[in-house]
């Protein structure tokens, strides 16, 4: 083996480059955008009963599966709080969303009252983030982001021709979440004479709503990545 005169210098140069690379911190991967879909009620808690005879817990689960499929097709990771007719405590639902550091959480409901889609953000007074937030009011630091998410969903649903009402409420589970969180309540679609055109468990109606919600979540992900 023969070393040229320039070999030691080249070796030192490579070593210097490697040393500099070792001192730099490894590049941090971009945070993964993940959505939590919460089909409300389940198990012994049937929720309300729709005029078609369907229980609210069943309509919520069907809608959850639809939305999960649409978001998955758009490359968005989804975690659901339940995949079957199982009872899940409201605290457990919040724990799932908080542990995953979700980019958005939608709690799905269905009702016979009113019309269109009812979007609810927490009624907690917005507050500054604290290191150890109280469990029952943890959402207070996220209310502003939740209201922004409500605005995005409102636009998408409005664009799809679905009537929306925005409101705020006290809902166990949502109030404990540390992520942008909303309750989405599907009410019947009504015509001019207040006659029901589509029930909340109608497959076509649910598909339209799920499509609009998926488009809104994609938009929300894009907005969240902007500086």
């Amino acid at each position, binding site marked *: 083996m023969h070393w040229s005169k320039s070999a030691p210098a080249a070796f030192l140069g490579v070593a210097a480059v490697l040393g500099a690379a070792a001192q730099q911190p490894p590049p941090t991967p971009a945070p993964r955008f993940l959505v939590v879909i919460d089909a409300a009620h389940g198990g012994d808690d049937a929720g309300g009963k729709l005029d078609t005879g369907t229980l609210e817990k069943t309509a919520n689960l069907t809608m959850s599966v639809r939305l999960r499929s649409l978001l998955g097709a758009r490359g968005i990771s989804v975690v659901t709080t339940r995949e079957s007719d199982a009872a899940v405590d409201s605290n457990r639902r919040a724990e799932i969303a908080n542990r995953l550091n979700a980019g958005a959480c939608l709690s799905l409901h269905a009702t016979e009252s009113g019309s269109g889609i009812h979007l*609810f953000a927490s009624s907690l007074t917005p507050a500054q983030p604290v290191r150890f937030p109280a469990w029952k009011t943890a959402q207070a630091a996220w209310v502003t982001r939740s209201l922004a998410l409500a605005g995005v969903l409102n636009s998408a649903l409005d664009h799809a021709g679905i009537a929306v009402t925005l*409101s705020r409420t006290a809902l166990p589970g949502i109030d404990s979440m540390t992520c942008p969180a909303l309750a989405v*309540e599907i009410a019947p679609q009504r015509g001019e004479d207040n006659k029901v055109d589509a029930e909340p468990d109608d497959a076509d109606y649910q598909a339209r709503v799920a499509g609009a919600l998926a488009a809104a979540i994609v938009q929300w992900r894009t907005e969240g990545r902007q500086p």
Partner: protein
Amino acid sequence: MIPRYQKILFVVLLIASLAMGVVLWQLRERAHKRLVAGDSSAPTTAPEVAPAEEATLVAANDNDNSLLPQVHSLPLPGDSGARARAVLGRLLDLYADPEAKHPVPGGAASVLQVFLLPASSNAQSHDAVAQLAVVNLASAFAASHPSGLQTETLTIDSICATLRANLPHVAEVRFLVDGQTRATLAGHADLTRTYLTAQAASAEGTKP
């Protein structure tokens, strides 16, 4: 010949019979007096109906998710707690109407009591005489209330806003059902927390 012990036994039984007769007579007299005394305390004059006053009921509408004030004339008692109960009873009577825009069965009988207590120190920092209203609802009302986020939220907000409109010192409201705490009204709206009437009033008149 009658034995001596039988004579004694006869006398003892006779005395006991007479004594029991006397006691029975006295008990009868006492019961009679009690009945007579009860008659005298029966109402003989009709109670005076409180004069009619104007009250503001903040009524909910499911169709447009709104809370709108309506002025009604109704007899209102002088006592604040009874006054709050009367106002809320009238509000729930509106909702019990089959044509109501926020239909909820039950009516005035659904409000069992309204207790007025000093509010929290936080509320009293804004109003020294701020009050906490504890509204005790009947379990039949909660059981028959339509289930849904919007309808339950509207019921709670309209109760809070109506209390604030008629009793301005009521800053906070808590709910009981048959005297017990309950997790939700009909599966959705949280009944374990303290509601601020100022927040409900801010939703008043709102439409999407």
